[in-house]
């Protein structure tokens, strides 16, 4: 078993890892927040997804354009802005062929739209002869169903394998097994384990140590709760236990100590079909209330910490391969205020926002580039065409590789929630790159300022 570092043509390497052949055409599907499907029927913590946020997240499907080559197809919920496609072409990305669903319903993921579209399914079926494989962002029963309907092989393991290895319970047990340092804590799969965990948590709270309870399939800040007092712990215990008793005693949570965090980290590895593990990249993750906001590169780690991460990645990849997983894996990690590194907080065995930036990172940025990948939250009064946005950001957008500036990597999320006739929220996803952190910060401020002054932006009081 080897751990390699990816170099060269990232698309060819990914293709080989996923399908066994460097020239195999792919059909990409950007079904972000596939976790919602994995969580169905599981005994986690109650929560809700706000419709506006779901509408925007579903349009992150457009990210797939950045990772597809000219012989690939990308399935999207709606046709991209023509100006945006020209812009992407101008970045030197050879663009794929685009297939759009007949009826893109805002609340549905691109996969859910696709399975409900017989004509699209038939078109995908026509690609079988080319040897194409279906490569979703992550695989749930919906993507598996689409693959079956179209007769396309998946460039991924089964939904059952993907779901299993994405559980936070699996992550904790894996860390125990391979001896990776992890926050003190325990898994809760039934009422006995829950009762023991709550007793342990109570003793930590008595000693002034906060605890965190996490849903095994929670995503983006949902299904996670930090508990700082015993009264709240008792309430939470009662809520979980009541639900578990109604559900044959099933519980699906982990309980952990709440660590004093200095930096969130996220790294990516790829497990190929042969079981070899490739370390891709590590970045600092920017989160707000557990919700992913973006990344910074390079990650603020010492050389020994880098080695520790690579060694953890190799161990995690080997274990995932042994459990039948292959494909892209994102791992969340963190450093604490006292300088400890926890190389695995959770495994996300699916594509990540970072995955879609890999081609840009390798072709557009130099080895010493400092970069900030983030989303700019927008509040707009009307739909903002890409051409207008491009003009607004003139001089701030990077105009050729290795030059300071912003590269936009998702535009559909800007106008995804438009159409109701009222103000709406949107997100602009981009990567600000420059030679120094100071320069990146200045460019970032400039982008924010220009967006604030856009005529489509709601005036701020």
């Amino acid at each position, binding site marked *: 078993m080897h751990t390699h570092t990816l170099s060269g043509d990232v698309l060819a390497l990914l293709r080989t890892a996923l399908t066994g052949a460097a020239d195999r055409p792919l059909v990409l599907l950007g079904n972000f927040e596939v976790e919602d499907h994995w969580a169905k029927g599981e005994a986690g913590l109650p929560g809700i997804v706000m419709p506006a946020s779901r509408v925007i997240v579903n349009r992150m499907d457009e990210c797939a354009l950045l990772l597809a080559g000219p012989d690939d197809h990308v399935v999207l919920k709606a046709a991209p802005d023509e100006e945006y496609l020209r812009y992407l072409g101008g970045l030197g990305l050879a663009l794929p062929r685009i297939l759009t669903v007949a009826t893109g319903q805002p609340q549905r993921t691109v996969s859910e739209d696709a399975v409900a579209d017989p004509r699209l399914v038939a078109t995908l079926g026509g690609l079988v002869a080319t040897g194409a494989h279906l490569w979703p962002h992550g695989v749930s029963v919906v993507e598996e169903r689409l693959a079956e309907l179209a007769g396309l092989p998946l460039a991924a393991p089964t939904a059952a394998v993907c779901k299993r290895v994405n559980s936070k319970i699996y992550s904790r047990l894996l860390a125990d097994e391979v001896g990776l340092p992890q926050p003190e804590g325990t898994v809760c799969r039934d009422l006995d384990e829950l009762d023991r965990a709550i007793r342990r948590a109570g003793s930590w709270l008595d000693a002034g140590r906060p605890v965190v309870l996490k849903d095994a399939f929670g995503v983006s800040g949902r*299904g996670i709760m930090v508990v700082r007092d015993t009264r709240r712990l008792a309430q939470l215990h009662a*809520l979980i236990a009541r*639900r578990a008793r109604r559900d044959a005693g099933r519980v699906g949570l982990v309980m952990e100590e709440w660590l004093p965090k200095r930096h969130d980290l996220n790294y990516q590895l790829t497990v190929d079909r042969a079981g070899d593990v490739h370390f891709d990249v590590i970045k600092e993750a920017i989160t707000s209330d557990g919700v992913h906001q973006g990344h910074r590169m390079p990650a603020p780690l010492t050389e020994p910490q880098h080695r520790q991460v690579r060694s953890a990645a190799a161990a995690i990849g080997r274990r995932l391969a042994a459990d039948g997983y292959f494909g892209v894996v994102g791992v969340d990690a963190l450093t604490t205020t006292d300088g400890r590194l926890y190389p695995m907080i959770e495994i996300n065995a699916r594509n990540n926002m970072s995955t879609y930036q890999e081609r840009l990172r390798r072709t557009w940025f130099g080895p010493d580039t400092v970069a900030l990948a983030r989303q700019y939250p927008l509040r707009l009064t009307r739909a903002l065409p890409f051409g207008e946005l491009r003009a607004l950001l003139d001089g701030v957008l990077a105009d050729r590789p290795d030059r300071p500036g912003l590269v936009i990597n998702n535009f559909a999320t800007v106008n995804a929630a438009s159409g109701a006739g009222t103000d709406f929220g949107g997100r602009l996803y981009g990567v600000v790159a420059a030679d120094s952190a100071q320069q990146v910060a200045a460019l970032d401020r400039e982008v924010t300022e220009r967006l604030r002054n856009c005529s489509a932006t709601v005036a701020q009081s």
Partner: protein
Amino acid sequence: MSDATIGAAPQAVAGDITNVVVGALGQMLSRDPASISTQLRLFEDLSFDSTSVLELLIQLEAELDVEFDTDTLEPADFETVGALVAYVAGQVEENA
């Protein structure tokens, strides 16, 4: 909250539930309950997030001694303070 109260005076119960919900929100957000009207939007006006939703459910279940059927929970139930009161009142009735 007794069954008799719920059956006998629904309006009074709705009023009580409004007080409980607004009180819980005030406590969570460190805000004077008197400043929380039923028209306020939880996410936009009160800066609610997913964690707050869970925290509020836990608090209300404990205070009202009910179990919310969260499988049927819709985002619309959390749109405004008033919508939340209606959801909670419905759940209290179902639990009665």
